[in-house]
């Protein structure tokens, strides 16, 4: 630690002057959610910074599904999980095979496929939602969870292909040559050489697509409507339609819904930050 000269103190003070507002700005909405989630119905709206009698009752009500908005809480939580995991797995499959073929097998037309993927990556999500909704209707997939899974794979895979292709190109080509000389087939090269070396990037894009699907609201609310098939995000949105919504239950449910992605993000932060910053914008 350096010495506390007046100049050093002034620097620290200036940094704190940025750091404290940044912290407040980030945390106030999150703290507000936590505050609601642990307040009883009467004290939730009292405007205090900390409830007089903090309680976990709201969580009990949510877990026991003791409110008509929460009739299918566990099922909807399961739907969110199932859809997110399916999207993660399918996206990984689609993106990894494509990136391998383009980067390592140098398939003809690979560049065109990359451009198609980039184009998709840049379409504003809400603009694709309307034609996607009509298309799912044409395919007879509306209200089936497949519609949401396939829509999210479509949205997640371009970015994942992009990141994986960037990472693939960095692997030394001598590895492939050595494998070829040993008589490896393309699939063996893929399975035995490529996949093990790509693990960090695979974790990054897998987590990315899983979180994207878990956090999605617009597509989920357009494509699914049955109470038993919707995700928890859509169920939370449905609270909005009531005049006297039970805010404290909504915030407790919201907190339960928001915690897994935050936890997963922190667990895989090491992989995610590298993948994201390398892939999102190449300078």
């Amino acid at each position, binding site marked *: 630690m350096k010495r506390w000269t007046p100049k050093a103190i002034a620097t620290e003070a200036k940094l704190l002057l940025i750091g404290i507002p940044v912290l407040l700005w*980030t945390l106030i909405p999150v703290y507000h959610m936590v505050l609601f989630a642990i307040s009883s119905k009467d004290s939730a709206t009292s*405007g205090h910074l900390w409830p007089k009698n903090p309680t976990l009752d709201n969580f009990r009500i949510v877990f026991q599904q003791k409110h008509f908005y929460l009739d299918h809480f566990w099922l909807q939580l399961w739907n969110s999980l199932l859809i997110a995991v399916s999207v993660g797995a399918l996206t990984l499959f689609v993106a990894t095979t494509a990136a391998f073929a383009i980067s390592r097998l140098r398939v*003809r037309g690979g560049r065109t496929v990359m451009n198609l993927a980039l184009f998709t990556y840049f379409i504003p999500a809400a603009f694709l*939602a309307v034609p996607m909704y009509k298309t799912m209707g044409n395919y007879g997939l509306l209200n089936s969870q497949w519609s949401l899974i396939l829509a999210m794979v479509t949205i997640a895979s371009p970015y994942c292909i992009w990141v994986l292709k960037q990472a693939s190109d960095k692997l030394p080509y001598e590895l492939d040559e050595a494998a070829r000389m040993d008589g490896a087939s393309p699939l063996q090269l893929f399975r035995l050489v490529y996949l093990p070396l790509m693990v960090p990037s695979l974790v990054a894009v897998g987590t990315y697509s899983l979180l994207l699907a878990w956090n999605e609201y617009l597509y989920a609310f357009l494509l699914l409507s049955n109470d038993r098939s919707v995700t928890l995000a859509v169920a939370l949105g449905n609270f909005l339609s009531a005049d006297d919504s039970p805010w404290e239950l909504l915030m407790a449910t919201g907190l339960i819904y928001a915690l897994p*992605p935050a936890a997963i993000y922190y667990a895989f932060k090491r992989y995610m930050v590298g993948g994201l910053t390398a892939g999102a914008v190449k300078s």
Partner: protein
Amino acid sequence: MSSTATATAAPLPAPLVNLGARHARWQFWGAVMVVPYLLVFVVFVLYPVGYGLWLARHPQSYVKLVEDPIFFRSVINTAIFLVVAINIKMLVALVLSGFFVTSRWWIKIISAIFILPWAMPSIPTILSIRFMLNPEWGVINSTIFRLTGADGPNWLNDPALALTFAMVVHVWKSLPFWTLILVAGRLAIPTEQYEAASVDGASSWQKFRFVSWPALKTLYITSLILSMIWTLGDFNSVYLLTGGGPADLTHVLATLGIRYLRLDQVDLSMASIVVALPLVLPLVYFMMKRLSK
């Protein structure tokens, strides 16, 4: 794509015929392995986009659209959103990226917390902000009441305030991501350049002006444009905060298309997206040029 030649120019003692057959086999597997993505693209991008354009083919849709006062308002709102929110967000991200590259133990902690809005799903966090703005019992107005004894404004009932808060929500949610990108950009600048500047007696502003900014400029502009494209598609910030209200005055193009869809006016819905294409496509073209070398 630069070293395509090495694939076939490997110094192999094997006969050339063998090599050709092997090459064909690898190309075959390559083709098989891009098929899953191509299928996804054709079935869920190409067909929907084509079908959407086909649904938007009637000129009268555009006449009806332009005659709808809500459409005009949405275009203005979208423009405000893009120009004001994006520029504020990117400038703040630029400043904060300088803060976050400073090495202090407590700044590391703040940077871990700072990512939360981006890592958490939109719906619970935006609803939390919405409740804070509730005119009767929201935390903002109850604080105003306690401090001054007067009732605070009905924030989301005023279209200008409601749109402003939608922009605040947008910035709150996406600022961490862009800060992270610019932090990565700053970390790539060699420290010797700053040391050299210090030796020359440069002030912090001069260090930014002559070292950081030249290195970050391209990344900053790319981020600005990508952020614009994505913000055009930001449905959540407006819909979850204001629902387009009051009186449909805070819609942006992203929520307007969905509004028409919910009213079963699919032709208007598609038309409202098609009119945005002259803005979107040049930006997309620019990004593709930048990223696909």
